[in-house]
């Protein structure tokens, strides 16, 4: 009797296990979302306009791309509507790019936070801000059929070449939520119907986009952040007898900024010591770069150039009460009791900043030799 009971229990269990395969998501039935765009819905400011891009398989070789526009109040709702509308299941684990339209970003990420955290969305997806996110997917990129892939590759390469920051979903969330540091997100523009451009960055304050900075300012910011191995800068400085200042292109190698915030009687004092090694890539002048004195003079010129540019950027950041450098984070780390997240923004706006720049030219990439005519 006991044996029979045991056997029947086993059979019951086996049949239970085999009745259904609840969570099967066969890969062929998935819409593998490559890009998500988020805009404000023009007709109703309470709604967001989500654009999902996913590949379609046309035949053996070719893959197309489909864009789906859905207006909903949050991502979860958008996903539900997406699945109702399509035979495909929504699959967000392979998102490459998440683009925020400028209006949506200015309205704030707060509503988006809950679903950015969804386990299915890959934290490694790149984030950009652009004027109209859904229009990104309409650009006819000549070299590839798929825009999300293209944007991802473009951002990755630009990051490697020191042109822009690399911001993933995870980094954005951390910086947007952590006290004492604000997020900066690359800005993507669409100059015409055929290409994208990386053009500066969007500054965020407490999950809300407040302003943009230009590409040159972004470079200064990247140098101050020191997270990037190389920053390429072009500037009109240099020792020259010529009337116009020559164009210098140089790369900052492993830039480092030591930021030391100090709070004295409610007054924030920030000492920033910036130091970097530097390579001259191109120098448009007749000056003889084999002379050490000339190189030293150029270095001094570049230092003062950086001092001015960085100072300008810092002033702008202070005016905006935005702290992407993590001054507050450092203050909090060094002296947690002094740091008050509510008062910090005011303190930062009033802060006295002492900026020092030190450059060391380690290599002269290009020697400009004048070709004297008639020598031949």
């Amino acid at each position, binding site marked *: 009797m006991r044996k029979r009971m045991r056997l029947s229990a086993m059979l019951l*269990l086996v049949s*239970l*296990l085999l009745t259904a395969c*609840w*969570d099967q998501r066969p890969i062929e039935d998935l819409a593998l979302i490559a890009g998500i765009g988020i805009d404000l819905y023009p007709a109703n400011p309470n709604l967001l306009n989500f654009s999902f891009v996913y590949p379609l398989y046309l035949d053996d070789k070719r893959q197309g791309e489909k864009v789906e526009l859905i207006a909903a109040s949050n991502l979860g709702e958008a996903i539900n509507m997406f699945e109702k509308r399509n035979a495909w299941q929504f699959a967000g*684990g392979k998102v490459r790019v998440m683009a925020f339209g400028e209006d949506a970003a200015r309205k704030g990420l707060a509503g988006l*936070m809950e679903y950015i*955290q969804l*386990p299915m969305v*890959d*934290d*490694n997806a790149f984030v950009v801000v652009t004027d109209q996110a859904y229009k990104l997917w309409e650009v006819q990129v000549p070299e590839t059929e798929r825009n999300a892939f293209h944007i991802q590759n473009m951002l990755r390469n630009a990051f490697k070449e020191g042109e822009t920051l690399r911001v*993933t979903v*995870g980094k954005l*969330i*951390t*910086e947007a*939520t*952590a*006290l004492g*540091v604000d997020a900066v997100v690359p800005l993507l523009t669409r100059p015409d119907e055929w290409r994208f451009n990386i053009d500066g960055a969007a500054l965020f304050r407490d999950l809300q986009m407040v302003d943009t900075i230009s590409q040159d300012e972004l470079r200064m910011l990247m140098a101050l952040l020191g997270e990037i191995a190389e920053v390429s800068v072009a500037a009109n400085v240099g020792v020259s007898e010529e009337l116009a200042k020559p164009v210098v292109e140089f790369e900052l190698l492993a830039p480092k900024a030591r930021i030391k915030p100090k709070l004295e009687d409610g007054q924030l004092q920030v000492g920033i010591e910036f130091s970097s090694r530097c390579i001259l890539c191109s120098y448009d002048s007749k000056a003889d770069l084999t002379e050490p004195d000339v190189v030293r003079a150029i270095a001094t010129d570049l230092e003062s150039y950086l001092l001015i540019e960085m100072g300008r950027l810092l002033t702008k950041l202070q005016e905006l009460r935005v702290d992407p450098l*993590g001054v507050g*984070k*450092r203050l*909090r*780390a*060094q002296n*947690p*009791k002094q*740091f008050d997240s509510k008062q910090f923004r005011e303190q930062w706006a009033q802060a006295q900043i002492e900026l020092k720049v030190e450059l060391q030219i380690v290599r002269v990439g290009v020697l400009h030799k004048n070709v004297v005519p008639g020598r031949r």
Partner: protein
Amino acid sequence: MQDKHRQVITGWQLFCLTLNGVVATGVFSLARDVAEVAGAGALVAIPLTGVVMLVKLVGIHLLANRFPEQTLNEYSYQLLGPVLAKVYLLIYGLLSLAVAISIPRAHFPLVTAWALGLTPKIAFMAPLAIVCWNVVKRGVVVTARVVEMFNYGGLALMLLLMVPVIPVDLDFVRPVFEQGPASIMRGIVPALFAFSGFDVYLIVFPYVRSKRKFWIGAAAVGMATLFYTVTTFLIIGNLGLEFTLLSTWPLQSYLNRFSLAVFERADVVFLIAWIFQVINATIVVMFVAVSCLQGTFPRVRPSFIHYLLLALSLAGVAYPIYSVLEAQIMGTYSLVAIAFLGGTPWLLWLLALLRGKRGGESDAQKDAA
């Protein structure tokens, strides 16, 4: 007595049993739970909890060492008398069983959120309970072997997790004393949940061959503490304190940030591989439960106890409770369990000391002889 408990367990196996009883599902939310109370002070609160656990281990060791040739099942009768001992062992067994049920139950929401959203609880938990029970019913030798076997994988996972592959922002972890020492002390309470489970030390003590049993147990507790501390350090350092608090499962969010060209979505892979560790911990705690139940009913056939355990654990994993209520129940219950399982060995030892009871020869005396 000597023959009855042939010393079949090696020191390494004791280490595995002790370590794997401790490290299970707790690691997924530990950083958040402790940081909620203590902020970045979690990094101090967790090692402190390790010290508290060491104190518990000392109690367990003193008690077990007083009766080196007997298991808890035998000397509790000598110390407490037949009725009280039965009650004590029954409570001990049921509490351990509850812990054994709560480990997979606590893991299930994670599995649901991350990989299997629609799978009914029973379909996932029943096989899990059955494979664990299948090990436990084969006795102490097989249990030790299986736990040891899985431990290699678990240990490898732990060591991998402790490698800082994603850069850590030290500024996030530095404000350790931001919220003051009192909150750090309060942070010990949620951390205790992640540390319970090495009561198996008390059960297998007479089976262990090694003489440095205490140090082995201490090493296991130390290893668990180190693991918890390092992962919390990495999580807070990478996610930032605020996002750690926002995140439901900070460990998964942390792993989600890691990506290699071939090995994407470390979070999903880890979640699946970690089931081995969940199984391991469940086996250890279930083993404690079955041993105590056998001690409670010494005349009942062992196979009956085994099937009783299976029925109880299946019912336990399948019983539907609302998740909020479940969290509440588990919160209170775990506190009771931790207090009982941690406190009673000390009390028993005190009782043994006062009554002057001592079972068999201690190791030191045997050496002298």
